[in-house]
């Protein structure tokens, strides 16, 4: 009996927690399916209305922005390019950086690693002017390249891969060497497959990180053609239901990525071997 009470109590707490997280999102979604006048008169809604298609289609295809050059659809495209670019580029660079740090006889490799790691303490905001001026000198303002590259060196991912490589037994490398594998083959045939789950986890982290960028895209793009979703959230004008609809849609890509890759993601974060 006491067990029943304690377990019901803990369930109750969990359910309250879930409600606190879910209800606001649900209210935005429910409200986004009504008409503007309905919301303006009656406030936020808990139940679905019948303007779903109308609202969402309009938001996706509406020519927004100051110069009316951009649609939400294009923003999603831009954000997707930027987020995937950041994810792929940062995973590739940190995989290779970690490989060099762990397996090559670099002098002061540990010191070098900590120098890389310290960059975590320097947020983008702090280096934003020099970074911008470099991009401007290179004529990379208003380009996908300019959006992606400056935020694609990840010390965190380098840390993860480095720590993982350090747990790979030396015998594996020696055995591979005797089997005729050179440094490149060892990287491709051993380390990459062995760190597959971690690669997936890092891809998700970095995708969400890239997707959520606000300040950098705001600075480096002057053309509306390169607006991203997160910028759009701020810039979008229009009625309240259209904004709600846009907010709802902006949540979809990160959630999709996590759903698709979650099997690997959980394995990667809680690596049990």
């Amino acid at each position: 009996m006491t067990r029943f009470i304690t377990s019901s109590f803990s369930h109750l707490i969990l359910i309250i927690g879930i409600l606190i997280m879910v209800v606001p999102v649900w209210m935005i979604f429910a409200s986004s399916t009504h008409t503007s006048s309905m919301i303006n008169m009656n406030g936020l809604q808990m139940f679905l209305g019948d303007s779903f298609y109308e609202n969402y289609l309009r938001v996706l295809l509406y020519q927004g922005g100051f110069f009316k050059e951009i649609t939400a659809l294009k923003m999603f495209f831009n954000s997707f390019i930027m987020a995937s670019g950041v994810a792929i580029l940062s995973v590739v660079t940190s995989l290779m950086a970690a490989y060099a740090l762990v397996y090559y006889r670099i002098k002061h490799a540990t010191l070098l690693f900590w120098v890389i790691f310290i960059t975590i303490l320097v947020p983008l905001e702090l280096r934003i002017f020099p970074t911008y001026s470099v991009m401007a000198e290179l004529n990379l303002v208003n380009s996908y390249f300019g959006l992606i590259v400056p935020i694609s060196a990840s010390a965190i991912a380098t840390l993860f891969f480095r720590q993982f490589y350090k747990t790979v037994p030396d015998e594996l490398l020696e055995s591979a060497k005797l089997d005729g594998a050179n440094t490149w083959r060892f990287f491709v045939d051993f380390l990459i497959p062995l760190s597959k789950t971690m690669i997936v986890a890092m891809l998700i982290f970095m995708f969400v990180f890239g997707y959520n960028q606000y300040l950098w895209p705001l600075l480096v793009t002057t053309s509306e053609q390169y607006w991203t979703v997160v910028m759009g959230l701020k810039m979008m004008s229009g009625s309240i239901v259209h904004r709600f609809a846009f907010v709802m849609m902006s949540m979809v890509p990160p959630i999709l990525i996590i759903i698709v890759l979650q099997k690997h993601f959980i394995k990667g974060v809680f690596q049990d071997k």
Partner: protein
Amino acid sequence: MSFLDLKNVTKIYPNGTKAVHETSLSIDEGEFMVFVGPSGCGKSTLLRMVAGLEDITEGDINLDGKLMNEVDPSERDVAMVFQNYALYPHMNVYNNLAYGLKNRGIDKETIEQKVNDAAKLLQISDYLQRKPSMLSGGQRQRVAMGRAIVRNPKIFLFDEPLSNLDAKLRIQMRLEIKKLQQKVGVTSIFVTHDQVEAMTLADRLAVINNGIIEQLGTPIEIYDNPKSLFVAGFIGSPQMNFLDGNLKNKTLSAEGFEIKDINTDFDGEVTLGIRPEHLSQSENGLINLKIDLVEQLGSDNLVYGQLKNKKDFCYRCPGNQTIEKGSNLSLNIENNKFYIFDKSTGKRVN
């Protein structure tokens, strides 16, 4: 020049530790050589230098007439079985065996043929599609051997491959390794700290201590004729009994008894070594043993006791004899099988 030639090979680690001292050794083609010694004696380092996994500080290693010092491990054509097997965890057994062949650019059909042959030889054909994590210790061991065999290398190197197995499996795998080596006929070096493994496997044995080969010879030579105190104590189980003594005018006096007419010119402090199995009971024996403990192994009894001066002593007798704890035994040395070592240098003097 023999098949594998080590000439004055020395290994000094960057921190100044000298792991191997000017070691010279020749191994013939098809020979099974065992390096045996206590842990940290440099036997693994020596093996790893042959493999190319450690740089050679000084000296030369020649394999099949070619100087190997600067040759990359991948091009030495040697195969190694590691202590923890070092199987590739993300590849199935087939790919574990095939990987080395693929890297050598061998075509698919030949690889398949070779892998299947090796798998049949080692009786792992049923597991080819499994990952190493789904195999038992003995099966992993076989896969590790298969990976070595399939490449058909010039030399097999074994780095304590049996130490992770349980006792029964170890004996079984030991036999299989020996049989396999005789069948395949590949020159092999086997490193172990287990003297039973060393004795049973070796064509020739190198007893290594502190980075020096103390003695090199067939197992029986080394057992019958140890050249130093270290070798005498290391080879043989249970260990040889050692007694302090004094040698003067070919007469040895030790622990209350004397042995005359010893064939030596040495005078001074010595250590007398007697193997537990080279003793027999007799009425008025040289050695009086007060028995503390008897281990009955079935085929043998191991009798542990103390001499008059409280020195521990061991005697091995056939298992059919009943020996009472607490009683006294009078023992004689059979056929003058005893060994005398200079106490200061540890060198054999008789």
